[in-house]
């Protein structure tokens, strides 16, 4: 899962750079292109609390992720790039960083939650 998270984060980052700095209007196509990865990540996360965190925290994080997914699903058919970029760059990317930050701080892969 670590590889997928890293790839997905990188792809969303590229999309966001295009949106913010190059005025790209391709966010819908770009996020649509990574939807299978988003789905795989979401299924993995929502399949159960496997991360050693409290049930309350897990429920909160799950609700956050569902909110992000809902916005992405809402934005794509309406070609709403503002909502889509917001959900992907300021929502999902931050969420993915929860799983990458530990590695950044400690340089230890073991900080990533173990795959189920």
């Amino acid at each position, binding site marked *: 899962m670590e590889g997928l998270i890293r790839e997905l984060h990188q792809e969303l980052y590229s999309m966001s750079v295009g*949106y*913010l*700095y190059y*005025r790209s*209007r391709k966010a819908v196509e770009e996020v649509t292109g990574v939807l299978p990865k988003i789905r795989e990540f979401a299924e993995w996360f929502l399949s159960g609390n496997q991360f050693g965190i409290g049930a309350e925290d897990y429920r909160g994080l799950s609700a956050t992720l569902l909110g992000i997914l809902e*916005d992405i699903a809402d934005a794509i058919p*309406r*070609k*709403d*790039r*503002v*909502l889509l*970029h*917001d*959900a992907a*760059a*300021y*929502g999902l990317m931050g969420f993915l960083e929860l799983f990458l930050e530990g590695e950044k701080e400690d340089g230890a892969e073991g900080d990533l939650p173990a795959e189920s």
Partner: protein
Amino acid sequence: MGQKETYLRNLETLERHYPGMRDMIEKGRKSLGEEVKVMAEEAYDGTRILRVRTADGECYLSGKREPRGPAREWARTLGNLQENAPVFLMGVGDPAYLEELAGHAGRRLVIVVYEPSLRILLDFLERHEIGGWMGRHTIVFCSGEIEGMSWGYMRSIIGRLVSYGTLPLTRFFVLQNYDVLFPEETLAFVKACNETAVNEMVQFNTLHRFEGVYVKNLFANSRHLCSCYKTTQLPSVIPQDIPGIVVAAGPSLNRNIGDLRDAKGRALIIAVDTAIKPLLNAGVEPDMYVIVDAKKPLSLVEDERARDIPLVTTVDAASEVLDYHRGMKFFANEGVWFVDRLFARRDKEAGTAMEGGSVATAAFTLLYKIGIQRVILVGQDLAFTGNRSHADGTFEERMPEEDTSRFLMVEGNVEEKVPTRGDFQIYLNWYNSYIKGCQEHDPDFRVINATEGGAKIQNTEVMTLRDAIRKECGKTVDIQACLGRLRPLFEGEDREWAIGELKKIPDSCGELQGEAEEAAALYRKLGAVCGKPTMSRKAYLGVLKKLRRQVGKVERHEMYQLANQSLNAARYIIQNEQLLTYDSVQEEGMEIARKGALYMESVARCAGIFQEYARQVFDGWEPGE
């Protein structure tokens, strides 16, 4: 402060800056339709954000999680904007963009906000106090839904603010999602900005291309003015109930050039210079032909049969062609000061310049201005029909095929799509808008595109040339007999006066040289005053006053216009840097002095060269009858 108070205070601010704007906005507010629905929501941090529904879609204009994030990043990418830099912003539905721009820019900017929806603009004005920003910057608010702020108005603002010199400092930005919610308005905005920028670049590059030959042509061709005719004389002798035919030299002319024989004596046939040889070789003698190109090679028209065909031209066209030509020469006003002054003695009618930028568009506007109601276009491909640029027999006997695989494709007249290039597309856009304007002004004006190939021109009727001649060319006419009724513009005393004025040109150039040298000396003096450790305010203001008077004298001089055109690149550098700011008046004064002296020295040098050339042209010149 409540919404109503904020709104009223903003209206007062706008009224103070733009008298009449309060009523315009209020009038628009009272007749607001239901086409745009604005729904306010709260972002996660409590910021008010908008979700907007139009006939074209429904979208957010700010994000829920980081409503200010994109605007902040955008402002960062703008870098250090120069003082008075024009910034065009389409959309105020995410107010963070204008806030970032107007609130945080360190320098005074000229901000033009175009908001297609008045409802969104009102929502903004009800919640954001603009008084502070309007004090720090020049801000113009426009909305297509306010009466009097049509696209013509918007275009005029863009045209006034964007020049070749300010182009590198100008910023254009369309807020994300406006293209989804307001696709037509967004396209129109982008097109208006793009066209202005392209026109500025084309104008600069054209001047740059021709600046080396401009004055040479102008002086040499001026000799023809004393026996010339003016295009404004044509409506008095050309019947307006016959069709006019513009014969351009596009590749499709190969397909129907022979058909033109049937139009002779049944229409006013005007050819472009490049089409003259193929036409004569096909047995078609046009009634007139046009040349405007300052570098047109003589070889393109060098044919004994072409020498006496009446010529419509400009005073800066290739002088070799005008010298070679023997027949009637028709000129139009082109804004050359000394030429227009000569014309004004006999003809007060101005605004008769040919337009559009190409020789064919010049011929087209001439026909329209003569008052002809039906114009037939032939060989006006504006595209590479059959992958060729021109008709056979123009630049080469058989024009070669070119690789057009990477060319821009546009809708075709006959084929579905045809390849074209940038300059052709500019002319195509010009035709599209010019014909529309002509037809708005005169609904009976018709354009028949009998170019059997090429790009599709809007608002034209497409038919074969054979059909067009059969349907439209029913009446016979002897154009040469019509033109024979005209008298030259200058005769008798007027002619003597015009010759006398032209012979004064060398002295006039010398006069400009003296005035420019005097201005350069004053600039150097200004530099010396500013360069002193303690600058004397009195001395500074004194030199400035003298400079203003002297520069005014230079700039009003008839020959200055020619020097200014010939110093295109130098003018660009000065225009480009005029918005730069300096740390002190002293520093700024020294920079003004340095550039001013350099420029005036260049003007003086130019005038000296002009004088030398003018002497060669006019000393000992004895015009024949």
